[in-house]
């Protein structure tokens, strides 16, 4: 319904446009596509670099003379720590996204539809934490906490600080999503004998799924690319995650020749882009419904 109306409004607007504005419209598309080009060119450069033959890579031309797709298998067979680093990244990110999502959904629901005493204070604290440079300043004492828990140089230990990277914003997003669900829906479910758990699971979750997509992506991006904590809390190369390894690798000769490096990069960056492209419709809806308001 909504989209239909919007469509009609758009066509109306197009029809009303005088002939002289055809040029303006063309100019508009040219400018937008210049920006698009600026965004896509660096990514295209890496993608092409990952399939360049070694001499092509040395020469530095944008388009390779000879394609060479063997770098992808090379990096996984010959760089021994790489599969381990990859596994670390996948494991830590999956755990982080899962736990943060559960925490955010439960908290978002509670802040809107249970409202225990003091929820106002919680919301204020979450908002303040968005403006304070928490991550930077807290690194000193998080190192001590992890030390005390025996989690220095422990890959699983990273999950704990990673959960809080985007926890506050995730809770606030879920909160504004749950504000869109009428309180009466949960009330009537509970009068029918469902507890908060069932009301949330059966009625709440389907209604906030766009928001779920948003916090999934936000937390994935945060954990998959985290640098500061991993660099500081993990000393051992084999226990680190991909971003720290990639940031430390100097492009040049041998195993870290440019095409190899680029191949690793493409492997690490593609899953996120594909997931986002597939979920973009829900992601945008979620952004418009909740994230931008929160």
């Amino acid at each position, binding site marked *: 319904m909504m989209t239909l109306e919007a469509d009609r409004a758009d*066509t109306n607007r197009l029809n009303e446009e005088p002939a002289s504005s055809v040029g303006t419209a063309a100019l*508009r*598309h040219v*400018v*937008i596509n210049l920006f698009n080009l600026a*965004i896509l060119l*660096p*990514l295209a*450069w*890496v993608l092409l670099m990952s399939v360049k033959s070694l001499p092509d890579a040395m020469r*530095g031309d944008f388009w390779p003379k000879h394609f060479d797709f063997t770098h992808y298998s090379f990096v996984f067979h010959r760089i021994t720590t790489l599969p381990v680093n990859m596994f670390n990244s996948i494991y830590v990110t999956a755990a982080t996204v899962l*736990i943060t999502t*559960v*925490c*955010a959904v*439960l*908290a978002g629901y*509670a802040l809107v539809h*249970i409202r*225990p*005493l003091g929820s106002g204070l919680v919301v204020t604290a*979450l908002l303040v934490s968005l*403006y304070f*440079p*928490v991550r*930077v*300043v807290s690194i*000193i*004492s*998080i190192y*001590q*906490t992890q030390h005390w828990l025996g989690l220095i140089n422990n890959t699983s230990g990273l999950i*704990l*600080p990673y*959960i*809080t990277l985007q*926890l*506050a914003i995730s*809770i606030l997003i879920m909160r504004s999503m749950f504000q869109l669900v009428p309180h009466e829906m949960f009330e009537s479910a509970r009068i029918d004998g469902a507890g908060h758990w069932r009301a949330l699971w059966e009625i709440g979750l389907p209604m906030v799924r766009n928001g779920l997509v948003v916090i999934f992506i936000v937390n994935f*991006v945060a954990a*998959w*690319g*985290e*640098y500061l904590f991993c*660099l500081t809390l993990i000393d051992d190369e084999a226990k680190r995650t991909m*971003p*720290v390894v*990639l*940031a430390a690798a100097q*492009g040049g000769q041998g195993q870290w020749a*440019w095409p190899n*490096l680029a191949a690793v*990069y493409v492997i690490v960056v593609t899953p996120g*882009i594909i*997931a*986002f492209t597939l979920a*973009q419709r829900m992601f*945008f809806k979620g*952004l*418009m419904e909740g994230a931008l308001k929160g």
Partner: protein
Amino acid sequence: MAQAIVNDEVELGARVAGGPVLVLRKGMSEWLFLLPALLFFIGYQVWPIVRVLWLSFTNFQLLSDKPAQWVGFDNYAQALHDPLMWASLGRAALFTIMFLPGTIILPLLLAILVDRVGDRRLATLYRVILLIPAVIPSTLIFVLWKWMYNYQSGPINHLLVNTFGLFTVQNAPQWLGGTPLTLPAIAIMEVWWGLGYHTIFFIAGLAAIPKDMPDAARIDGANEWQVFWHVTRPQLAPIMMILVVLRFGSAMAVIDEYLIFGGFNRASPTYTWTIFMYDQAFKTGLWRQGYAASIGMIGAIAMMIVMVGLIWIFRPKG
């Protein structure tokens, strides 16, 4: 409304079952849903900040055997008398000034353009392309641009030297590694990174403006610039305020980029208060974390003062 309903329920429960125990249990079960989130939030956000605040008043050194002593404001006095503290704050501010205008104005311009694209499919395609950098994790953005800016084999210098012949291999610009070009280079990268995400922010804001408002202005004879300045801009002001304040905060507290592109040379323009703090806490001597904590608190407080000022400037008037 909901609060009232919940309160009523609690009272009803207490009256029927007759006991404060039930009220307490009711209260606990209400908090159950918030518990997991609060556990992490307090354990890894609130507590660390409280602890850093406490550390900043001690002479704590992590690698030292001696127990930490309370030293009052000594750390703060020492930091405020250190020219490096002021220089490092100034560098962070300099970077913020380089970064902030571009990251607000370009997305605003782009949003106005994309908002007027009538073709629904094309509009979706544009938004997807624009948002790609936003779903690339931070460190991977930095690694990508570390290669872009690479002195010898980066495509930017390749373009400048081989394609346009503006420079030779000897005098090509040294973008990264603590040169004067490092801060502008990082600022360009950050604008590139945030371009799409901020554009989406503004598009959402534009979508909320009733279509008849700019149309009415046009009928009254306003040109496009006047429409933008008198109709669109005031409507977007709240979004702009949030973006300016949030981006000011993230720009002042940049650390990963400086660690990757700059290192720990104290003369480098990337040696800001965040790196100063990190250097003291994890690199220098016996890891002077008490002193580092005071540097972190000074940086954070300085930032917060400006942010409150910004919020005050942008407050809704009238």
